Structures are given as C-alpha cells and as structure tokens.
C-alpha cells in the first residue's frame, strides 16, 4: 500500500524513469568520489599535523563543514535548474503532455508530481553525502541537531528553487531553453539580488553625494534578500555552526551583516529571525510559482497547437 502522498502517477513514473537512468548513477558516483576525496585529504592533513606534534584545532572541522555546505548549496543551485528544466518541457517535446492532460489528473497533480520528484532527486543527493558529514560529528564541534538544521536549510533551498524550475519548464517549450532560463533565474535570485542591493545603495549614495557605507537611505532594498536562499542558508549556518567571517557582534547571521551595512535594528524580529521570515516568504513565492505553472500548462499547450496548421 502506497502512502496517499506518493499516490501520484506522475511522481511514481518519473521516479521509476530516473532510477533507470545511467547518468543519475554516474553523477551520484562522481559526486560521492569527489566528496570522499575531499574528506580523505582533510583527514590526511590533520593526521600528518598530529603526527608532527603540531597543534590541531577542532574548529578547523567546523570551517570545513561550513565550506562544504556552501559548496553543496552551490552545486544544488546548478543541479536544480538543470533537473527541473526539462520536467514539463520534456513531456511536451515527447508529445506525452497532451495525453496526460486528457487523463483524470488535474494540472496541479501533474505539476505536483513533477515537483516532488525533483525534490526527491535533490534529497537523494543530500542523503548520499550524509555518511561523509558524520565524520564532522565524529570529531566533534557540531551537534546532530545543528547538522540536520543546516541540511534542512539546503533542502529547503532546493525546494524553493525547484518551484521556479517547474514554472519555467511549464512556460518554456524546449527543455534546453527551460534549463537555460532556470539557470539564469537562479543566478538572478542568488547573485542578482545582491547586486541589486549594491547598485541601489550606490545609486542612492551617488545621488545624495554621500559614501555607500555611511548613507542609510534605500535600506528597504535589502528586503529583496529575503527571497535569496543563500542569505537563508547563511543565516542558519552562522546561527548553528558559526562562520569565521564577521566582526565580534553579539548578533549572528543576517542580523550581524545588516547591523554593519544598514541602519536596521538587529534586534528587530524581521532581522533577528531572518530565516523564519525568509522561509515564509519563499514558501509563498513557491506556492505562487507552482499554481501559475499549473495554469500555464494548459494555456501554453493550447498556444502551441494554435500555431499548428496541419490539423
């Protein structure tokens, strides 16, 4: 008996197809080899240091962990758009979408099946690296709770970015185009939002003849960073494991950064609990994207047929 949540034919079909694909096994293998080598190298260096009676700082492990999580997040920012890009457009290219749309499945069922299948794929990547991360637990410096909190934030990032992927996959007809648009979108969300903050602040500073750091007009632009999952992961990572960067402020995460670059009060709920506000907003955006993907499914398909004259 399947759980109700898994009783989505599209989800089961996609999982079955993905499980059969050789490139999935190969990519997992390569990823795990790279991570294994990374940790082996780190352990080797640590052991050599210990053998030479050099000091060994346990804190090094947390830095490695931080760097590792940031790297995995970056990988997810690339994998998710490539994975979700073809989700719907592939069905369209394969001409199976028409058939799907005549079944009992609602448009949202199709979208949800595709979305959950993409999230499970990303989840499987995260799960596959868990054994390596336990090395950090073994040497100490990070608790199990902290580890899971950080991993969940990575997964939440994947879930958020997947909604954009599914949306663009349903509005862009070609898989390759959809993947490219998705990558561009992720770039805009992660890097573009930071660039937008920087340029807006600079513009305000230039127009008011003041320097960037001292001028606080335009601080509202930082609100766009709530939609940037990198800031959310950073907030959680700094508040749980801790990052080496930053001053000796008593605040952590985005509150520490914003306290330095803006006039915001870091004790303000919206700043202090950045990750909570961020997740609420990102969830709302995600639901909005999925709903619109569902609407676009039928409309884009009809447009495609509308262009056909060989009827």
């Amino acid at each position, binding site marked *: *008996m*399947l759980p109700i949540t898994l*009783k*989505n*034919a*599209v989800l*089961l*079909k996609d999982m*079955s*197809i993905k499980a*059969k*694909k050789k490139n999935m096994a190969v990519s997992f293998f390569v990823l795990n080899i790279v991570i294994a080598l990374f940790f082996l190298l780190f352990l080797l260096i640590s052991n050599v240091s210990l053998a030479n009676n050099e000091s060994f700082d346990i804190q090094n492990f947390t830095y490695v962990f931080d760097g590792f999580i940031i790297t995995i997040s970056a990988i997810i920012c690339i994998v998710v758009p490539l994975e979700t890009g073809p989700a719907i457009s592939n069905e369209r290219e*394969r*001409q*199976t979408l*028409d*058939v*799907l*749309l*005549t*079944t*009992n*499945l609602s448009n949202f069922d199709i979208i949800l099946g595709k979305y959950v299948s993409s999230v499970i794929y990303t989840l499987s990547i995260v799960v596959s690296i868990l054994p390596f991360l336990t090395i950090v637990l073994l040497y100490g410096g990070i608790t199990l709770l902290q580890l899971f909190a950080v991993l969940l934030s990575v997964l939440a990032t994947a879930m958020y970015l997947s909604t954009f992927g599914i949306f663009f996959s349903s509005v862009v007809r070609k898989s390759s185009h959809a993947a490219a648009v998705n990558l561009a979108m992720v770039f805009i969300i992660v890097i573009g939002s930071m660039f937008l903050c920087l340029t807006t602040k600079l513009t305000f500073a230039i127009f008011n003849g003041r320097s960037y750091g001292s001028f606080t007009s335009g601080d509202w632009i930082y609100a766009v960073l709530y939609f940037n999952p990198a800031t959310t992961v950073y907030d959680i990572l700094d508040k749980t494991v801790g990052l080496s960067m930053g001053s000796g402020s008593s605040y952590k995460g985005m509150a520490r950064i914003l306290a330095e670059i803006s006039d915001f009060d870091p004790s303000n709920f919206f700043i202090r609990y950045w990750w909570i506000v961020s997740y609420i907003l990102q969830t709302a955006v995600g639901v909005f994207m999925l709903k619109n993907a569902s609407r676009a499914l039928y409309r884009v*398909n*009809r447009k495609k*047929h*509308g*262009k*056909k*004259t*060989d*009827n």
Partner: protein
Amino acid sequence: MLEIQNLNKSFGTFKALNNLSLTVKDGELFGFVGANGAGKTTTMKICVGLERADSGSVIIDGNSVLSRRSLSVLRGKVGYVPDFFGVYADLTASEYLHFFAGTYNIWGKAADTLTDNLLELVNLSDKANTQVDSLSRGMKQKLCVARALVQNPKILFLDEPASGLDPKARHELKEILKNLSSMGKTIIISSHILPELIEMCSSIGIISHGEMKFNGSVEDALALSAGGEYIEITFSGDPGRALSLIRECPFVKTAEPTASGITLTAAGSDREYTELLRKLVTNDIPVATFAKKHENVENVFLNIMEGKTNVADNA
C-alpha cells in the same frame, strides 16, 4: 453518443472549423475523413478537451465538453489516441499501462489485472516487459490504443492511428478496432486513407476546410459513387469519326478524347450502351475495348470535398 453543433474554431486569421456539425450514434465506428489541415485533429482535440472552441456545442453522452465541470466527468468516458505515439521510451509496456492506470486512480492488483487484460486485448502480452523504445511502430500504436482503454471509455477518438504503419500492422489494428466496436465502444477514427475506413466503418463524415461536407452511412457514401459511372473506349487504329458518332447519342452527357481513346459519361442503360458499341462497329470504327467503369472511391470523396458532388441532403 456524440453530437457536435455549429462548431467554430479559428487560429488567428485561419478558420480551422466553420460551423461544423456532426452526429455519431452509440456503438458506431465512425470514419472521419479529410485532407491534412481539413480540421479533423482540431475537432478531436475539442472533443477531448485539449482545445477550446470559439463557439458551438459538443455533447458526449449527455455531457457538454465545453463545460469545465462536465469535462472532468467526461475524462473517464473518453479515450484519446493522438496522431503521435506519446509514449515513454524508458518504460516497459507494462509499466506504461500501469502509469496510466495510476492516472485514473487504479492501483495495485486492480492495475495488474487491467494491464494484463489490455495487453492481451492488443496482442502484446509477450511484450509486457519490453522497453517501449524497442517496440515496432505497429506495436507502439497498439499500446497507445490499450492506453486509451485504461479507464474503459465509452467513446474512443483515434487520430490517424494507421498512419505510417505497414500493411500487417494496419490489418492488426483494424481487427482490434473491429473487436472494440463489437464490444459496444463508440469509435471515431480519422484518416485520409479512405478505402481503409470504408472497409471497417459503419458511417463516415467528410470534412474539408473546416466544413462538414458529408455525414452519413458508408452505404450512402458509396451510393454517391454510382453517379460517377463512365465508359472508356480504346481503339486499335484511327478512331475516325467515333467522337461525333458518340456525341450524336441522346443519352451521352459528355465525350472527351483521351490519350488512350475516348471517355464518356452517360446516363444510359446497358442496352443503350450495347447499341452504341454496335453503331461504332458497323461504322468500321476499330474498337479495341468498351468498358463501363465506376469512378474510383478516392475520386468520389475528392469530388465531395471539393464540392463537385452534390451531397447537400447528407451534410
């Protein structure tokens, strides 16, 4: 079972359907004939809810396709095989059918039984564990028909299902469709290969430029070809004044010289044709052959599509 009234659909300035009306009775095997671009696929897509009509009505089993609420009810009653395979190459035939069973909320043992039965129905039981990708075109098409039957629909729309199939696969498909028809399913099948439809359909509709030119029984359609009778005369030597002798006959409507002899259309009896032949022979015309022929079925339909044949009562 299916009643289409004054259906209109335009794509930009192109009018795909123009006041199209059509009726298909319960249990009929209906052939939908028309050239490429005539509007067959558009009509079918509107019927299965993939396209929205600009105006008109489509009623299937008492439910309007154009109403959203009815459409969800109709999903379970209507099967659709598009003019392309629409298969997942990475799945086996059995997995493919299991997937579509799931789309109709049929799971577990019920899905297993259904899949086995459908594969048996389309003679693909031995291919259950074969990757869809490695099936032949004919087998893929049969699998698509099986897929369209997953929800046990009352009415089945098949868009050019025999297109690109070899004669053996066509024959097998035809047998499957006849079998389904005998099971009481209403089947609407489109094609531009007319003799194929004539053989298996009980009624046909001829569509041209989005307009219904004929809608009736195959017998009625074939009766139209009776009017397409002509006589072909060939000569072993110089036909001389044969043409003027032929044109003198009162029952001859037209007489035109051709590369091989003379072709004439006439409304005479067999006896009058015998008299004509005798007249030619007694006038020393070297007649080699004198044959009464029926216009080719394809030509009759072509004439109907082009409006050369009057079918006003049937349309």
